[in-house]
């Protein structure tokens, strides 16, 4: 390859903006240093391989203090910590990278939010010795709040954990459990030692159990173009270009969507429609433009358009409103004064805004909501705002460009807060289904995973199956359990012979084959209910060992808990409220266990309770549930 060809090829690579978050001790500076300096060596090697007699300078063995190379301002050097967002740049043969390096300290949430606002991807560092800590959760929450779609969890310092796969897996599991509800679409895990350069640029032979990519290879190959919104055309007009009296070009950046020459467009807020005459750039007149290109548009008719207006397709409008809900991050030392008329900047629009209400605040360490009357520095909360004139916006989740705004204090002119608009109707609207979800639907898999359900209901979705002779007191126990568990907050379903036979199993009698069919139906019902997060209590005689085994199979052996109410026949007869034994003795009914058919005494029960000791039964079950984290789950 000729050098010109190499250069032509090189300038075609795309740009990935990434954020790194972690504390001083997690080895973040070392990781960044590795990416910056080790990748440069690779790049140089590739380039010098082009020339036959290239001079290879030895880099190996050079001792580099990576952290020192990255250090910035004098004040920080004295403190020995980074205190702001610092931007770093590096390039490989495949991609160019911009790193926003942000510190991990709580008081600098502001800086992390700043770095995250332009990032495609976040690397979150964890010290393998410490695992998932509060700070990790905080960083992850901020990353999800700012809409970053790709998270790489770098489990660093694996060398100090003897490269233990088990330790690594434990950290990944802990992290997955925490991150699931945040809805970040793409999460990857990397065991590494930044200090020793293991799995950073090159894969390490110290962790043969890891089969993934090195961090750098992942960063070079991850697909990000489709993260941009190419669907909803939004063009906030920045500037009107007027080289002559009869020419008016509307200059701006394509925030989202695609615009083509000849497209019908609408001007907001006037609602006047026209058509795109030409897409103008210094270099040529392309037939279409896409984000994040900066172009100039001319229209077919003479239409009044000025800065702050927005060009859109008439068939796809943003929300046009003076009122909206948003997540707000307070960035100023001075707490919020609710009486202030803030200046708001949203796309190319400037107007005034007032906070109508603080709906709730978020504790970024626990993600719990709480009430507050004002915002302090670094606090995050949900607010309702009203602006002096209507804004044209989309929910931040759908459109990072038209869903974001800043608030400016009218006196100090500080940027006091930044906000991300929430789609007000999103709670009632179904979100678009993803490809992965579509596959799940086809397979009949639910879109909420069991961990989330377990968390919501605070219970394991299992089945408690009470077996025993007629009159052993099964229903009494089952109904007592239902009442008590309900009052404690459990979400439960109770199934017993009488209620199921009244409808679902109406055509079935008590013969062994019909009993088996009846119980098969009940077992499948239990399974469906368990899948949806319900705790199920069943009360059935279920006399046959083989049938009980089949039930356990259907429900899943680890979700099936067999409780045997042990009673002798005399006790049952004396306790019989339905007169079943009397009828059986008179020969009016058949197939009654203990009379004319066998009741198999269960062998593998989780609990065996004495039918005569009614006062202890429920208590024993509660203890069992608690001990096995069935209810409550945590």
């Amino acid at each position, binding site marked *: 390859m000729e050098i*010109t060809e190499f*250069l032509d090829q*090189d*300038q*075609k*690579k*795309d*740009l990935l903006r990434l954020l790194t978050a972690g504390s001083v001790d997690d080895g973040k500076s070392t990781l960044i240093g590795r990416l910056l300096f080790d990748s440069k060596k690779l790049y*140089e090697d590739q*380039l*010098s391989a082009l020339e036959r007699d290239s001079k290879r300078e030895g880099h190996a063995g050079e001792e580099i203090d990576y952290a020192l190379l990255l*250090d*910035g*301002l*004098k*004040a920080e*050097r004295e403190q020995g910590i980074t205190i*702001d*967002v*610092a*931007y*770093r*740049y590096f*390039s490989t043969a495949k991609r*160019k990278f*911009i790193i926003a390096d942000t510190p991990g300290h709580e008081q600098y949430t*502001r*800086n992390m*939010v*700043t770095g995250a*606002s*332009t990032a495609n991807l976040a690397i979150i560092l964890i010290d393998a010795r410490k695992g998932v800590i509060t700070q990790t959760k905080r960083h992850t929450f901020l990353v999800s709040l700012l809409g970053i779609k790709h998270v790489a969890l770098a489990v660093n310092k694996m060398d100090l954990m003897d490269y233990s796969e088990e330790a690594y897996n434990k950290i990944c599991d802990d992290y997955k459990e925490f991150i699931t509800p945040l809805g970040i679409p793409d999460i990857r895990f990397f065991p590494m030692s930044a200090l020793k350069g293991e799995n950073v640029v090159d894969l390490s032979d110290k962790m043969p159990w890891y089969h993934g990519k090195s961090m750098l290879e992942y960063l070079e190959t991850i697909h990000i*173009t489709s993260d*941009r919104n190419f669907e909803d055309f939004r063009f906030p007009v920045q*500037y009107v*270009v007027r*080289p002559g009296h009869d020419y008016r070009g509307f*200059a701006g*950046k394509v925030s989202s969507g695609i615009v083509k020459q000849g497209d019908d467009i609408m001007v907001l807020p006037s609602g006047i429609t026209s058509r795109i005459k030409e897409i*103008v*750039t*210094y*270099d040529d007149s392309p037939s*279409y433009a*896409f984000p*994040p*290109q*900066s172009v*100039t548009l001319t229209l077919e008719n003479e239409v009044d358009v000025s800065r702050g207006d927005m060009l859109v397709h008439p068939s796809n409008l943003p929300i046009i409103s003076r009122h909206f809900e948003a997540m707000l991050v307070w960035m100023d030392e001075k707490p919020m004064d609710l009486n202030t008329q803030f*200046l708001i*900047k*949203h*796309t190319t629009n400037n107007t005034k805004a007032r906070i109508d209400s603080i709906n709730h605040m978020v504790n970024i360490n626990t993600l719990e909501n709480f009430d507050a009357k004002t915002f302090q520095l670094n606090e995050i909360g949900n607010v309702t705002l009203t602006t002096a004139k209507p804004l044209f916006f989309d929910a931040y989740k759908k459109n990072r*460009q038209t869903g*974001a705004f*800043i608030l*400016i204090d009218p006196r100090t*002119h500080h*940027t006091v807060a*930044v906000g991300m608009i929430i789609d007000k109707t999103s709670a009632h609207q179904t979100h678009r289904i993803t490809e992965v979800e579509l596959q799940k639907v086809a397979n009949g898999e639910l879109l909420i995973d069991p961990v989330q359900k377990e968390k919501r209901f605070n219970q394991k979705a299992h089945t408690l199956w009470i077996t025993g002779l007629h009159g052993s007191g099964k229903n009494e126990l089952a109904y007592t359990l239902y009442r008590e568990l309900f009052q404690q907050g459990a979400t439960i379903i109770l199934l017993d012979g009488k209620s199921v036979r009244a409808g679902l199993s109406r055509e079935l009698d008590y013969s062994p084959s019909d009993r088996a069919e009846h119980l098969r139906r009940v077992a499948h019902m239990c399974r469906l209910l368990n899948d949806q997060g319900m705790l199920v209590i069943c009360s059935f005689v279920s006399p046959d060992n083989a049938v009980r085994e089949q039930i356990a199979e259907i429900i899943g052996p680890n979700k099936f808990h067999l409780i045997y109410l042990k009673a002798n026949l005399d006790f049952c007869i004396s306790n019989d409220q339905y007169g079943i034994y009397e009828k059986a003795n008179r020969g009016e009914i058949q197939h009654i266990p203990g009379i004319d058919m066998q009741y198999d005494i269960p062998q593998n029960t989780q609990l065996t309770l004495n039918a005569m000791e009614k006062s202890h039964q429920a208590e024993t079950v509660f203890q069992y549930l608690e001990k096995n984290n069935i209810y409550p789950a945590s």
Partner: protein
Amino acid sequence: MNKPSYHINNLRELEAESIHIIREVAAEFENPVMLYSIGKDSSVMVRLAEKAFYPGKVPFPLMHIDSKWKFSEMTAFRDKYAKEMGWNLIVHYNKKAFEEGVGPYTHGSKVHTDVMKTQALLEGLNKYKFDAAFGGARRDEEKSRAKERIYSFRDKFHQWDPKNQRPELWDIYNAKVQKGESIRVFPISNWTELDIWQYIRLENIPIVPLYYAKMRLVVNVDGNFILVDDDRMPKEMAAKAEMRMIRFRTLGCYPLTGAIESEADTIEKIVEEMMTVTKSERTTRVIDFDQEASMEQKKREGYF
């Protein structure tokens, strides 16, 4: 028709970002100016401004702060292109200090830089009451620049407070200033030295010939090759001059800017050299070594 591609390469993405910034400033400030240093970064920045307002003209003037110690090739280049391209160019210098004879050889680099560059800049900005000044600084140039905002707020005394910078998120820039306050704007913040060269190659942007390697008459001063540009260089120093194949990575005042030995006499060779270079371009700037963290100090005082 070909299937449309929505892929954007890194130079075009940086270009789009810079154009967006330049347009924002033109739209939101009353009296912006673009500081033009004649260097490669300025040349790229001016091209971006021309692109931003095409087919219209750039709606603000360019201003060159002339320290009167620039390389003579720089001044010649400036005057040629300003005329050819029809730029609205202001050239400002510290007249009083110039007449007093301030220069690096007589007053030392620190005093010279302060008086002929920083003071001259502030004087120029005050004289025309500019409320926004574009500069061609890049974050990868120097450590303290890595933390600079794109809109860098300056108080009435043009001072920068690194501890009290405005948060800057997405591409939404806070353009609010009180009377007398101003901002410095760095539209090519996210460009690296390599990007600049690749873009110059891609766009065919004219640059001062000093960037290309050539046999030139230089003096080796503690490892820095200083060009013998005019007869103001002290005689005993000029006596040690020798011919070397050199080029400049950055351009400033000739006594304060070191050349590097290089064979790169075409743009391709320069780009190739940049791809493998390990030293920062600032190491060729003698003024940066004056004192610990000197760039940060100068920025606090109002320099770029």
